[in-house]
């Protein structure tokens, strides 16, 4: 299957890879892309690599809070005066 790595189909597939992952292809384009992945190991690898990369970029959770930073921010917040509410009499 590696012979299709540099063919026109592969160029087309690579061009559509991010569009596919971002869900912005038309239904037909997405189907064509998926069909190509089934035939082409290299593009399937490229897809898997990009999928993992995107998952890593998108994961934005952090597990531990730095307690010193938390204390510092709380102190800053509590010494901040908000623009006061309009006087109500």
């Amino acid at each position, binding site marked *: 299957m590696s012979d299709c*790595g*540099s063919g026109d189909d*592969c*160029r087309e597939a*690579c*061009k559509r*890879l*991010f569009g596919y992952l*971002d869900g*912005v292809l038309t239904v037909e384009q997405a189907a064509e892309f998926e069909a190509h992945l089934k035939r082409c190991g*290299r*593009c399937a*690898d*490229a897809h*898997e*690599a*990009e999928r*993992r*990369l*995107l998952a*890593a*970029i*998108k*994961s*934005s*959770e*952090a*597990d*531990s*809070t*730095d307690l010193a*930073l*938390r204390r*510092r*921010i*709380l102190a*800053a*917040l*509590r010494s*901040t005066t*908000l*623009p*006061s*509410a*309009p006087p*109500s*009499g």
Partner: protein
Amino acid sequence: MTESVDLTPPVVPPPADFEQATLPWLADVRRYAYRLTGSAPDADDLTQTTFLNAFRGWHTFRPGSDVRRWLFAIARNAHFRGRPRRERLVATEDAELESLAAATDSGRASAALEALERVDLAAGIDAEIARLPDAYREVVLMVDVEGLSYEEAAAQAGVPVGTIRSRLYRARRQLQQALIVRAEDVGLTGGLG
């Protein structure tokens, strides 16, 4: 006017509300700030600025919307505000996308896949996002992390949608290359058993 105490709720929500709603996201905001600044002390400072700006703007928060995304956007705006836009990246859309396609095409795929298995992705990705040029970093954070559509990102960055797309693709490509280099370094030094 009576002598009774004023029981009308203040216009600005009380700080306790604010702290309850926002502080659970402190670690996430700090990570986001690190991706913006690339340095621990700068990330701490930006995190503090973000919470203070958020506190002052708490009355503009739309109840029911996503607090975390709101904080991320505040951090991003605080970071980029007033920064000179150094790189004017000229995008000739189709030609760029062609060359991006070619980059994946040339036998890189399995190397990339292997690299992504070898590096500590979570640690590497934050540092490498921080090293992207401003215009690329901004788009990656807007689209991939904050989840804005290409159109929303274009509106915020003040550039055409095609420019967002090509910056985004280039940024991801650059991140992938950087991670491959990291993996190669790990391989050379035998860092991972």
